[in-house]
């Protein structure tokens, strides 16, 4: 039987040719940094990270600690299985030890597991509390405020602003991040005597929010709080606008992407809506102004939250390496603890016990179209601040 040989050898040839183009990665003196984003589909975020990468490499002259930077961006496809495997792949075959984390909490928690095993520094801003809570480890760092901080910086200011508004309704995405936000919200409601008149759980990617509005209206809610993210928040607020919900209740979206979401929501629907965000380009901190100016010089538009996040996280990795004067991740981790600098959201510092970053979180309110001075002046700042869990309150027991 001579069936197998010849053409399966042809296949071998094809495989060899393909892998020829990839080639093994030589062990050079360089620093491999990696970032992950979703290249397509509903939660796409690839353009932002690419721009951030170019900006970062530009301002550093392509080097950190006097070594050239090899920067790899992978497509996590929004899936934990893909993200985790590709991170492990980069760690093992390219020796990458510095990772900028994903947007999705599900992917982030899976990647954090791999980061711990491969002793890779992972800096993420996805919301799940566990990342720097019960699942914390010495290589995990968080930049953006966690669900806890976001809730503290958005719900409490509104409670204080509208003391008569006692009936609050929540709309929550049914996964780890949503649950984090909801639990934190409930604690705040309890503490401040707010009546939590109802909650709706929805799967991620929910397109129809009308039913939830109706139920909120039936419950005579004073405030409707959206605890979702990204496209879900955009859809929620747009539809709330269609239903004229803002006339019946105050609307708060706790976790938004700033300009990116506002552009998609549109000024009509965003008017008067309260939005929480990790970054806003129009605030008066030296770090913010410098960053926004440099970004605008390069790209002609102000930076959005994801772009600011990536740049800041890349900068954190670089600063850590240079402070530690080493690429050893244990040393870098130690060096990053307690690090202080003028960040893109104001004064920024990293807590040692759980690696969370003290930075500002912003509560914004959508401006009416006629008050916008330019197309990006879509919101005014209501309040800002930082809230982090103390060591006593935190579930993090890092070794």
């Amino acid at each position, binding site marked *: 039987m001579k069936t197998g040989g010849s053409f399966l050898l*042809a*296949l071998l040839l094809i495989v060899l040719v393909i892998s020829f183009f*990839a080639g093994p990665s030589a062990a050079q003196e360089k620093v491999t940094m990696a970032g992950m984003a979703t290249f397509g589909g509903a939660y796409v975020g690839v353009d932002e990270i690419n721009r951030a990468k170019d900006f970062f490499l530009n301002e550093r002259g392509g080097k950190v600690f006097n070594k050239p930077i090899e920067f790899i961006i992978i497509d996590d496809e929004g899936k934990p*299985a893909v993200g985790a495997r590709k991170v492990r792949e980069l760690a093992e075959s390219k020796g990458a030890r510095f990772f900028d984390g994903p947007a999705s909490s599900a992917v982030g928690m*899976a990647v954090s597991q791999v980061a711990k095993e491969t002793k890779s520094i992972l800096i993420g801003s996805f919301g799940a509390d566990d990342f720097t809570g019960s699942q914390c480890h010495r290589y995990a760092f968080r930049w953006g405020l966690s669900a806890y901080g976001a809730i503290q910086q958005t719900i409490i200011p509104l409670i204080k602003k509208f003391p008569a508004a006692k009936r609050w309704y929540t709309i929550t995405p049914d*996964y*780890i991040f949503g649950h984090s936000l909801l639990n934190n919200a409930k604690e705040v409601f309890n503490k401040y005597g707010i009546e939590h008149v109802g909650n709706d759980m929805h799967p991620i990617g929910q397109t129809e929010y009308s039913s939830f509005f109706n139920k909120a209206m039936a419950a005579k809610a004073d405030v409707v709080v959206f605890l979702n993210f990204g496209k879900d928040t955009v859809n929620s607020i747009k539809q709330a606008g269609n239903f004229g919900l803002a006339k019946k209740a105050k609307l708060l979206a706790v976790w938004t992407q700033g300009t990116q979401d506002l552009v998609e929501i549109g000024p009509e629907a965003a008017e008067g809506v309260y939005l929480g965000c990790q970054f806003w380009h129009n605030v008066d901190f030296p770090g913010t102004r410098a960053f926004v100016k440099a970004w605008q010089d390069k790209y002609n538009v102000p930076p959005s939250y994801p772009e600011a996040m990536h740049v800041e996280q890349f900068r954190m990795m670089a600063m850590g390496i240079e402070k530690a004067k080493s690429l050893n991740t244990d040393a870098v981790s130690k060096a990053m603890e307690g690090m202080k600098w003028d960040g893109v959201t104001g004064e920024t510092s990293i807590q040692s016990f759980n690696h969370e970053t003290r930075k500002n979180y912003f509560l914004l309110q959508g401006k009416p179209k006629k008050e916008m001075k330019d197309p990006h002046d879509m919101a005014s700042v209501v309040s800002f601040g930082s809230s982090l869990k103390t060591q006593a309150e935190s579930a993090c027991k890092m070794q």
Partner: protein
Amino acid sequence: MNGSKFPTHDALGRKTGLIDRHILIVSGLSLLLYFILPFRTLPTEILVFALGAVSFNILLGYTGLLSFGQGAFFGSGAYTAGLLLIHFHWHPLLILLLSAFLAASIAAVIGFLSIRQVGIYFVMLTLAFNQLVYFIVYQWKNLTGGDDGLLNIARPDLSVLPGLAVPLQTNFQFFIFVWAIFIAVLIVIRRITDSPFGRILVAIRENPDRGRAVGYNIFHYKLLAFIISGFFTGLAGGLYTLFLKMVPITAVDIITSSDFVIMSLVGGTRSLYGPILGAAIIKIASEFLSQIWSRWMIVLGLIFVSFVLFMRGGLWGLLLNLRKKLFAPKMEGEGRL
């Protein structure tokens, strides 16, 4: 064809052993994957998906059943393995076996309900069942972790004797483990498909009425095919969990189902080994392309379209044609099921 008297013959009645040239070459090439490709984790993933695709192809290529619900079996196997690994610390082979059995049971149920339908209705029904399983898994958070899946699963070593264990912790070690299971399963599947049972499946695909006329219980054969396919798909799912050390909810979703369908079609459904080719090519191409261009899915989509327009027999068919052209008239009617 005196099927029952000669259980180890191929389609042309030639005697074949357990391990023949095909198996040797596939073994060699799949082993080589680890050394040729510049990836440490991709080769293992390729083998897991290749196993899933080959198992799926028992239904499509051999029995003519376009099951769009393999994700339900793959995912069941994956979750079973995950839960067992979290709550008990049993032997990995035992866990894989249990995962396969559970998946086979679910396949039995879904198969039983679906087989009576034909054509597009069958496809839609398997799709509906897959979605049902997916949403049940999604909702049953206490058991499955819902959208978050199951994380932080430890991969045990392979204990051989009390006190002696084969380590499975590094990429290479685990790859060899998966490779060995892959080849073993391939040999078993090949025995099944080369046997009279396998040929009856093909007969059913070609002309079910005639099969019925000759006295075969079509329903039973199709159901058995489902169970066998489900068994090995679940096994692949269990391997997936051991590989990732987590169970993502994507293991049970419709995209995984369509992955197996596409891999088989691209690789070639008219052969046992075609889906292996398909899995390898698609996984490798996706990995390389995603590094080059963020809009890489366009290329993948174009590849699919071209396959349907120009290479209906898949890669396997392409290679067969190449071989025919190079070594012309000797081979007549070979390589067909």
